[in-house]
C-alpha cells in the first residue's frame, strides 16, 4: 500500500522525462534508482558520444534501444592541424552498420572528425526510412558517389551538411539524384566541395524546397548564378556564397543587389572566396539585419571591410582575416555593440614579417567596445601582459579565449617578460572561462594561475610552454572541470602524469605530443588504470625497440568502458595489462 503511494506509473515518469533534454540531466535522472534508469533508457531519443572509442556500438545499443539521433566524435582535435597520422582511426562504419540493424527509425546522424566511407553512406541511405539529418563535420573518406546514394534514397532528408569535410569530388552529377518529387530540404552545406555541381539541378532543387533556410554553396558556383538561386529561395536565413567575383558589369551588380535585397530573412552570410571588392556593396541592403558574418576567406583590405562591417549594427558573430587590421577592429568595436564572438585568422601564417597592421591593440579595442563579447579566437604577432590584463578586466564575461601568437615562445614585446601574468589575469577575472588556448613565452607560473583560478575550465590547449612537470601538475590537480587537455612541445613528463593518473578518468581525453613522457611511464599508466586507454603513437617504430626512458612521440589517453580498441594501425600501441603480449 505504502509502496503504491510513492510510485508513479511508468507512463507518467516517461512523460516527465520527455521534457528533460540535456544529456547531463538525463544522466542524472538515470542515476536516481534502478527503475528510473530503466524508464529513462527506453525513452532516451538522443545521444552524444564525445569520443567514439569511449564506448562501443553494442554497449550503446544495449542501453538505449530507441534512439532517433546519434552524434559521434572521432579523432582528437589536433587532427585538424595534421598532428594525427593518416589511418589513426575514427572509423564510422562499425557504428553505422550496428545502428542500421538496431535503429530502423533513426533520424539523425552527426559525425565529427570521423572516417566515413561511401559504403557507410549507402547503408545510411538504404536503412533508415525516416532519415532526416546528416552532418559530416571535418570528416573524410567518402566521395560524391556516397552523396548520390543519400540524394537518391532519403526521401525525408532535411539537412545535408558537409562542413569542412574532405570529399573526393568525382562529379557534380550527384545533386541531380535528388528526385523531382523531393521537396523537404531545409539545410544544405556543400561549401567544401572542389568541383562544380550541376547548376541547373541546384537551381531547381533550391526553388522547389519551400523550407530551405540554409544554403552554403561551394567556391565553384559562379557569382552571376547567385541572383537566380536567391530568387528561388527568398525565405533563406543563412547563405554561403560561392566565388564572389565576376567580370565587373553593372547588370551583374544590380541583379545581385536586387536579389540580396529580396531576402528579407537573411541573417547569416559566409563564403566570399576570391572577392572582387567592388561587388561587396551588393550586400549593403541586408547588412542591418545580419547577425553572423564569415569573411574569413575574403582577401580584401581593411577599408572595404570597414565599409561593410560598420553597416552591420546587429552583428553578433564575425569571422574575418587579419586584413581588417587594428583600424578595422576599432570601427567594429564602435559599430557592433551586440558582438558575442570574434575570430581573426592569419592571412599569411608562414610569413616571417607581419604583412598587416594588426596587433594586440585591435583585440583591446574590441574588448573595450563590445560588452557582450564572450568568445575570441585571435591570431597575431605580438602581445603584452598589459594588453591581456586590460582585456581581462574589460571582459570578465569571456567564456572562450584562444590566442595564437604566431611565433612560438614570443615574450611580452614591451617588457620581454613571459606572458604568465597576462594569461593569469584572464583566468582570474574571467570566472566562467570554459575554453583557453595559450601561446607565447610561458613558464610554470601561468599553469599555477590556471590551476588556481580556472575552476570552470573545460578545455585547455598548450603549445611550446612551461618549464617542468610542475606546470602539468598544477593544471591536472587544480582544474576541477577539465575535460580535454591537449599539449604539444612542452617539457612535461612522467611525474605529473603518474601523480594525477586518477584525474584522467574524470576527463574525456589527454593529448601530449613532442613532450617528455617516457615509454615506461606510459606502460605504468596503462597497467595502473584499466579504465583508460593509453595509446602511444610512434611512426619511427615500436616503442619497445628503444629504452624505456625514451620519450614517446605522441600520447593519447582517454577513458573508456569499451576496453582497448581493435582497429589500431601499425603505429599505435595500447598500453595495458597485456601490453607485454601485444608488442612482440
Amino acid at each position, binding site marked *: 500500500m505504502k509502496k503504491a503511494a510513492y510510485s508513479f506509473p511508468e507512463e507518467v515518469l516517461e512523460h516527465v522525462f520527455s521534457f528533460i533534454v540535456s544529456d547531463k540531466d538525463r544522466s542524472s535522472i538515470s542515476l536516481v534508482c534502478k527503475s528510473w534508469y530503466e524508464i529513462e533508457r527506453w525513452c532516451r531519443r538522443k545521444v552524444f558520444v564525445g569520443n567514439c572509442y569511449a564506448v562501443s556500438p553494442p554497449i550503446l545499443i544495449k542501453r538505449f534501444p530507441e534512439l532517433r539521433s546519434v552524434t559521434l566524435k572521432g579523432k582528437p582535435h589536433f587532427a585538424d592541424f595534421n598532428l594525427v597520422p593518416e589511418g589513426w582511426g575514427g572509423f564510422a562504419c562499425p557504428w553505422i552498420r550496428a545502428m542500421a540493424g538496431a535503429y530502423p527509425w533513426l533520424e539523425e546522424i552527426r559525425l565529427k572528425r570521423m572516417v566515413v566511407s561511401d559504403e557507410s553512406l549507402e547503408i545510411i541511405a538504404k536503412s533508415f526510412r525516416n532519415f532526416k539529418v546528416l552532418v559530416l563535420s571535418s570528416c573524410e573518406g567518402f566521395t560524391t558517389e556516397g552523396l548520390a546514394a543519400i540524394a537518391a534514397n532519403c526521401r525525408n532528408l532535411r539537412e545535408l551538411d558537409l562542413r569542412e569535410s574532405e570529399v573526393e569530388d568525382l562529379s557534380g552529377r550527384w545533386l541531380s539524384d535528388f528526385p523531382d518529387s523531393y521537396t523537404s530540404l531545409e539545410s544544405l552545406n556543400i561549401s567544401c566541395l572542389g568541383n562544380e555541381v550541376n547548376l541547373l539541378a541546384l537551381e531547381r532543387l533550391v526553388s522547389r524546397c519551400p523550407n530551405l533556410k540554409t544554403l552554403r554553396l561551394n567556391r565553384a558556383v559562379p557569382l552571376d548564378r547567385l541572383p537566380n538561386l536567391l530568387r528561388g529561395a527568398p525565405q533563406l536565413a543563412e547563405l554561403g556564397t560561392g566565388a564572389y567575383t565576376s567580370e565587373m558589369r553593372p547588370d551583374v551588380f544590380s541583379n545581385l543587389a536586387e536579389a540580396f535585397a529580396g531576402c528579407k530573412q537573411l541573417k547569416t552570410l559566409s563564403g566570399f572566396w576570391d572577392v572582387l571588392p567592388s561587388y561587396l556593396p551588393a550586400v549593403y541592403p541586408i547588412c542591418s539585419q545580419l547577425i553572423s558574418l564569415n569573411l574569413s576567406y575574403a582577401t580584401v583590405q581593411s577599408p572595404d571591410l570597414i565599409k561593410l562591417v560598420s553597416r552591420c549594427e546587429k552583428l553578433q558573430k564575425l569571422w574575418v582575416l587579419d586584413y581588417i587590421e587594428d583600424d578595422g577592429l576599432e570601427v567594429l568595436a564602435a559599430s557592433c555593440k551586440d558582438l558575442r564572438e570574434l575570430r581573426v585568422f592569419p592571412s599569411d601564417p608562414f610569413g616571417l614579417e607581419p604583412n598587416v597592421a594588426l596587433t594586440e591593440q585591435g583585440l583591446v579595442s574590441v574588448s573595450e567596445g563590445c560588452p557582450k563579447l564572450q568568445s575570441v579566437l585571435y591570431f597575431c604577432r605580438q602581445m603584452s601582459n598589459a594588453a591581456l590584463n586590460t582585456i581581462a578586466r574589460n571582459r570578465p564575461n569571456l567564456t572562450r579565449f584562444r590566442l595564437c601568437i604566431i611565433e612560438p615562445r614570443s615574450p611580452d614585446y614591451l617588457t620581454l617578460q613571459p606572458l604568465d601574468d597576462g594569461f593569469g589575469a584572464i583566468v582570474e577575472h574571467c570566472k566562467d572561462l570554459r575554453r583557453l588556448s595559450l601561446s607565447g613565452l610561458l613558464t610554470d607560473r601561468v599553469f599555477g594561475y590556471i590551476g588556481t583560478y580556472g575552476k570552470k575550465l573545460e578545455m585547455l590547449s598548450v603549445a611550446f610552454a612551461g618549464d617542468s612537470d610542475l606546470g602539468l601538475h598544477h593544471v591536472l590537480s587544480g582544474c576541477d572541470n577539465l575535460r580535454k587537455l591537449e599539449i604539444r612541445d612542452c617539457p612535461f613528463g612522467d611525474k605529473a602524469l603518474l601523480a594525477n593518473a586518477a584525474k584522467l578518468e574524470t576527463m574525456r581525453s589527454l593529448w601530449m605530443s613532442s613532450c617528455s613522457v617516457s615509454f615506461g611511464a606510459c606502460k605504468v599508466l596503462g597497467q595502473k588504470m584499466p579504465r583508460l586507454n593509453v595509446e602511444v603513437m610512434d611512426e619511427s617504430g615500436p616503442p619497445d625497440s628503444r629504452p624505456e626512458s625514451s620519450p614517446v*612521440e605522441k600520447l593519447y589517453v582517454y577513458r573508456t568502458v569499451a576496453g582497448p580498441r581493435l582497429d589500431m594501425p601499425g603505429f599505435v600501441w595500447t598500453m595495458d595489462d597485456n601490453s607485454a603480449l601485444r608488442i612482440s
Partner: protein
Amino acid sequence: MEPSIYQSELNLEATELRLGLPGRTNNKRSSPEDRSRSISISISKSSSVDSSGPSNATDHDDDDDDHQNSVQPAKVQVVGWPPVRSFRRNSMQQQKQKKDEHNNNNGDGSAMYVKVSMAGAPYLRKIDLNVYNSYSQLLNALQNLFKCTFGEYSEREGYNGSEYAPTYEDKDGDWMLVGDVPWDMFTCSCKRLRIVKGSEAKGLASL
C-alpha cells in the same frame, strides 16, 4: 606520405629550407636551451592536402614580388603550427596564387589574356582567363560578350541545340571543343578562343 621527423640538433641551419642568397641568416633562431627540450621539427611533405603542389616555400617567393628583388628565406615549418586548418590554408594559397598570376600576367607560356574571335564579328575581343574559376563562368561571360548562346554541354554531343559553340586553340595548335578537359588543364593550354557556328562544332564533337 609520412613526414620525416628530425630531432632539432645543432645542425638546424644546415637542414633548413632556404630560398635566400647564401650568407643571409634568419632572424629569431631558437636558443640552445630551447633546443635541449625535445622539439620535433618536421619538414613536412604532406603538411597540406592541397593538390596544387607548391610547397609553402614557394609562396614566399610570390609574396616578395612586390618588394624589390629580395627573396626572403623560407621558415622551417613546424608541423601543425600555427594551428590553421588545412582547408583554410589551401584555400588561402589558391587565392594568393590566383592574385599573383593575375598581377604578373603575360610573358610566360600560359598567358592568361586570350583573344576571342567570332565568325561574323567585326573585331576580336580579349578576356582574362584568370578571372574565371570554371567553365560555366567563362561561357556566361562569352555569351554576354558576343550576345550568343551555347546550349547545354554534354560529353557525347558537345553543345547541343545551339547556334554557336566555343572552341579553343591549344598549345599544339589544334582546335578543341571547350569543356572536354578539366578546367585547370584548359587554362594552361588555351591560347585563343573562337566562337563557331553550331554546325562547325558538331564536327569537332563527334570525333
